[in-house]
């Protein structure tokens, strides 16, 4: 089995070969092919969205995807979340000496697949190899650039009373998939990470003139974590409707067994759209036409001035939904 050696990151022939064959060939595009120190890009709008994220997920391969896809989709979705249309990403690989070439190729293929799906180009990158024992197989960093159309105005300042919160499908899938894979929990079922690029959903809402006031992808901290932040920053109370929360049977089952609320689990293919009340039904209809949005639901609304997140339970009692303080831990009984 071929393995990554320190020399693959050492600037010599082996590294050159690696970049030519594994990177340049695979991600072929005009900007990358020049292999300059920086990619030179053409600007398409007044406002540029720029983001970066590092991916250290363990395990590297999990049901529904791997670190490569995640590294593309995560960065793409961070750009989408500010109303941008992603165009370019960078790709930095930090690989542990001895990492299997075969696995690396699988990951790079996933990156290619995901970037094609999200219609972004890998235009620059870097490869470092670290000594065995100093990493966890592979870490990936991607940065992304997207362009925001002039007529898009997003932000906390746009959030207003009665805005509806729409999510494009069931929650907690990524978080529970990783937990199950990492801790070797023996469960049967069809639980898979939801990692996916959400650019098409945003594009559809934008092109149909839906008044979206805010967006956020509920990754770490889950729906509960990110909405707590939004409530606090916007100064509005946000209320979620327990009965409307989309949760699959697999996630519900695990959540019951482990004592972890799906609202706290990470998602990698979900977006919460804050949509003007009068546009909400239309937005739902549009989103539901897409595979990634066919289970879209209104899960809550912006209530009134305040600054906290609340839940309307199925018994119609309102209670608070607290800011989570760390990764949820499974409980004993």
């Amino acid at each position, binding site marked *: 089995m071929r393995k990554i050696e320190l020399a693959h990151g050492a600037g010599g022939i082996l590294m050159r070969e690696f970049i030519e064959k594994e990177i340049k060939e695979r991600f072929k595009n005009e900007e990358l092919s020049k292999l300059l120190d920086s990619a030179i890009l053409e600007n398409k709008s007044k406002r540029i969205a720029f983001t970066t994220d590092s991916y250290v997920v363990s395990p590297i391969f999990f049901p529904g995807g791997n670190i490569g896809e995640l590294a593309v989709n995560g960065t793409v979705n961070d750009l989408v979340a500010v109303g941008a249309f992603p165009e370019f990403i960078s790709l930095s690989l930090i690989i542990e000496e001895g990492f299997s070439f075969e696995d690396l190729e699988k990951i790079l293929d996933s990156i290619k697949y995901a970037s094609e799906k999200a219609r972004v180009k890998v235009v620059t990158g870097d490869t470092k190899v670290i000594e065995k024992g100093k990493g966890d197989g592979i870490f990936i960093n991607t940065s992304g650039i997207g362009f925001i159309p002039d007529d898009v105005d997003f932000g906390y300042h746009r959030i207003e009373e009665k805005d509806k919160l729409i999510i494009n499908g069931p929650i907690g899938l990524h978080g529970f998939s990783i937990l199950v894979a990492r801790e070797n929990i023996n469960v049967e079922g069809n639980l898979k990470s939801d990692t996916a690029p959400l650019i098409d959903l945003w594009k559809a809402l934008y092109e149909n003139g839906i008044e979206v006031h805010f967006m956020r992808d509920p990754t770490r901290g889950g729906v509960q974590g990110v909405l707590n932040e939004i409530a606090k920053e916007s100064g509005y109370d946000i209320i979620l409707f327990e*009965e409307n929360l989309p949760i699959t*049977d697999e996630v519900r089952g695990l959540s019951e067994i482990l004592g972890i609320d799906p609202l706290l689990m990470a998602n990698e293919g979900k977006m919460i759209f804050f949509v003007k009340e009068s546009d909400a039904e239309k937005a739902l209809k549009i989103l539901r036409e897409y595979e990634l949005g066919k289970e879209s639901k209104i899960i809550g609304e912006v209530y009134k001035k305040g600054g906290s997140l609340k839940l309307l*339970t*199925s*018994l119609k*009692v309102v*209670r*608070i939904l607290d800011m989570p303080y760390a990764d949820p831990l499974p409980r*004993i009984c």
Partner: protein
Amino acid sequence: MKYLYEFRESEKVKLIIKSIEKICKSKWTIMEVCGSQTHSILSAGIDELLPSNITLVHGPGCPVCVTPREVIDKAIALSKMKGTIVFTYGDMLRVPGSRESLFRAKADGAKVKMVYSPFEALEFAKANPDKKVVFFGIGFETTAPCNATVILKARGLNLKNFFVLIAQFRVPPALEAILNDPFNKVQGFLAPGHVCTVMGIEEYLPISEKYNVPIVVTGFESFDISQGILILVSMLERKEKGVKIQYKRSCKPEGNLRAKEVINKVFKIGDLKWRGIGVIKNGGWVLKEEFLDMDANNLLKNYSEEIEEKKEGCIAALILQGKKKPFDCLLFGKECTPLNPLGAPMVSSEGACAAYYKYKR
């Protein structure tokens, strides 16, 4: 999701609450014993729907909360010993001992691993004979059969590198401790459904008889809890004592005979310290003589125990006994939060103070 969603249907729950309103004539103080029940009540908001003459107080049934600091300190000391690895349940990791939690110790290089089942620790011990494996097993009667089974398995395999640090609590003596208190206010109990699924109701009959209190073995979903309250209130109104089972789909009067057999093979009844309450006579299970060689305490030769410091103002003991509620505490939500818990009930998400912090602030 059979056996789950149908026990959460809000229409059914609302109907039961209407019936409670109808039959409830006097003021009653009811204790739900188990932390999972507290969690369920607050999470669904049942407490806010009940008629105002019913007061729910929250019992001591959160095993993570009542595990004494000194036991956690011992687990931490073990995890820092060379060649020793401590395995334990997830929510035990964040619980502070005298100085730090297992989580904190782990960040400093202590060897701590979270498990879902003690058998993961056993498997590890089998595969790594050069390492000493300590399973830090705590809990009520619910975890006892599993903890006992892993000990029997290790004995069967004649493993010399598998040890246990056990804090195994029993519910009935805690109920007696509450009822024996001259200031007790609790008039009826919702007994813990899963504990009774293992143990049956035998131990609860003499308690009901002696103290003249009705006890209803109750499940954990909003339907179960409201129905348990309905049964209990109707018993209270009729001045009826005795033990009834609401959680029939799981609990049989005789309990789980096989589970009890396994427990009795490994453990015997003994006095045990509960965090926040103190030593309860017969309040737990301890290892029988023939398993004492597996007691992880044997590994702690030069270990000196620290004395538990008392935090002034914390009313954990009163809360665990149903005499006070979390909001009665001046420290609640201020100096004492889940991030910095001062008393047992704020320690685990199943504790009453933590549940109030999470759902009701």
